[in-house]
């Protein structure tokens, strides 16, 4: 190898967009899974990975090309063509049904990677990954792996578990796809509403996983929330979904919630309640997108829980300060929400809104009304809410009891420390 052959002089270095590899990977895996068939997701992932390796080997020594996506797609396409041409592919990898279907490309010319195809394929992938016959844990793991380009260690870290656990979820998901012969299709007609609802549920689950535990050190978990938003954006960009108000409502909800994210911790990484947040740290650009989608969600008279929750989030976002929050309107929304969803979390949030409108005494009474199931009794925020009502009524010894119930139930260390500070505050007041 003579000197300087591979290495070229570069005046500038092309930059890659944030998470480009992950997102391109999601697109490429979707397309190749369509080409190879849903039973062969693994093969699709291998081809995509090999394409990235090749890209990096070349680009490190020859500079990042002006259009990295096109480069990646071209390489993946060539690898796919080679694989399809091999007789081994037809005999070993695909089922008879798949060969009969329209999916198998008959000639090279059918292998197009146009923008429409890429969008269609990602949607097909989403509906396959989020199929209701797969458990939700497995749905989320498979979606993150295939559509979002996360690795198994990254998913394990995000869900605070180990690789074996995630691997099991993936294996189960893939097995289910094979055994249930889950097709790679965007459903239509009567099936569509139900299937879409399942997809949205998974996306919202993913969002909450990212949103609830996120602080500076858990940047990866915030990226889950970003991915959830991105997946919903993919759905609304497809013409088949432009009259599906639920998707716009979910997207609005996520964007409005996420816009307040950066203010949730102070410089030392401590959690700040909504009351204490510096509102100038909110992401107003993202918030505006949320408001626009909230408008779009009002396209028909349907009111899903996503609509109502988005509405609540909107009221918080549009308040100049905690004190000026329109709690009355929020309470109205929660009162509508409990008709669709009377889970303890919703009842609890409604109680908080009610206390803002009618006082802490009524808030406490509302808490008493909540049916005491195992899930509410283990929910630390129930006791935290109770404690805050007692504090407002200057009943500090009762507040101390509630906080003490909350602390062992709080899942994260930083939540526990926030509670201990509150306990200190109550003790000082009580003495």
């Amino acid at each position, binding site marked *: *190898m003579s000197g300087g*052959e591979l290495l070229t002089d570069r005046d500038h270095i092309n930059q890659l967009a944030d998470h480009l590899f992950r997102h391109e990977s999601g697109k490429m895996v979707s397309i190749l899974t369509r080409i190879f068939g849903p039973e062969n997701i693994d093969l699709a992932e291998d081809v995509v990975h090999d394409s990235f390796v090749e890209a990096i080997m070349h680009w*490190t020594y020859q500079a990042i090309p002006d259009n990295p996506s096109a480069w990646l797609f071209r390489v993946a396409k060539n690898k796919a063509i080679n694989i399809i041409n091999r007789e081994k592919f037809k005999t070993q990898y695909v089922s008879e049904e798949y060969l009969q279907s329209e999916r198998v490309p008959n000639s090279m010319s059918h292998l197009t990677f146009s923008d429409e195809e890429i969008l269609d394929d990602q949607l097909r992938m989403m509906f396959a990954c989020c199929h209701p016959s797969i458990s939700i844990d497995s749905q989320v793991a498979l979606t993150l792996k295939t559509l979002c380009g996360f690795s198994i260690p990254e998913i394990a870290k995000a869900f605070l578990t180990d690789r074996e656990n995630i691997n099991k979820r993936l294996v189960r998901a893939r097995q289910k796809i094979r055994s249930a012969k889950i097709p790679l299709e965007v459903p239509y007609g009567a099936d569509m509403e139900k299937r879409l609802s399942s997809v949205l549920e998974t996306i919202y689950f993913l969002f909450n996983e990212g949103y609830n535990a996120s602080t500076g050190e858990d940047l990866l978990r915030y990226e889950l929330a970003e991915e959830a938003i991105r997946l919903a954006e993919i759905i609304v960009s497809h013409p088949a979904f432009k009259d599906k108000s639920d998707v716009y409502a979910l997207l609005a909800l996520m964007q409005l919630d996420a816009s307040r994210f950066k203010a949730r911790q102070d410089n030392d990484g401590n959690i700040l309640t909504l009351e204490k947040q510096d509102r100038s740290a909110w992401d107003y650009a993202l918030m505006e997108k949320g408001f626009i989608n909230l408008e779009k969600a009002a396209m028909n008279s349907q009111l899903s829980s996503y609509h109502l929750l988005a509405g609540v989030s909107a009221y918080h976002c549009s308040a100049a300060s905690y004190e000026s929050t329109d709690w009355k309107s929020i309470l109205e929304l929660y009162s509508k929400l409990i008709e669709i969803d009377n889970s303890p979390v919703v009842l609890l949030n409604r109680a908080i809104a009610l206390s803002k409108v009618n006082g802490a005494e009524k808030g406490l009474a509302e808490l008493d009304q909540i049916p005491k199931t195992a899930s509410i009794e283990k929910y630390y925020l129930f006791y935290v809410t109770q404690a805050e009502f007692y504090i407002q009524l200057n009943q500090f010894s009762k507040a101390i009891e509630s906080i003490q119930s909350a602390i062992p139930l709080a899942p994260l260390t930083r939540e526990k420390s926030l509670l201990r500070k509150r306990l200190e505050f109550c003790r000082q007041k009580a003495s």
Partner: protein
Amino acid sequence: MKDYLLIIKTEGSVWTDLSKEQLQKHLEHGTAYIGNLLKEGKLKNANPIDKGSRIVSENKGVLKDGPFNETKEVVAGYFHILAKDINEAVDIAKANPIFKDIPTKIEVHPMMPVGG
């Protein structure tokens, strides 16, 4: 300026053990690092190592070859650099951002000048 051979040995492989996100970061700071060396005129050649390595060995007069022992330590690539002395060569090796991506050792070998 003297010639030095830098051999990059990673624990595990960059190609199999990094996620897409990590690969992107690896690429971004790798190209910056190489770009800098080129600008400073310190890089004569560099290459990553591909799959399919073999090892040739001799036992009792018989030569055999087989697949490269799949130990955890993988030869990832090499750099042929120019530096004024071993200390500068070591500094150049230390600046390689691969240390951020994966556990790595870099061997720094002074190349004996041979006339020509």
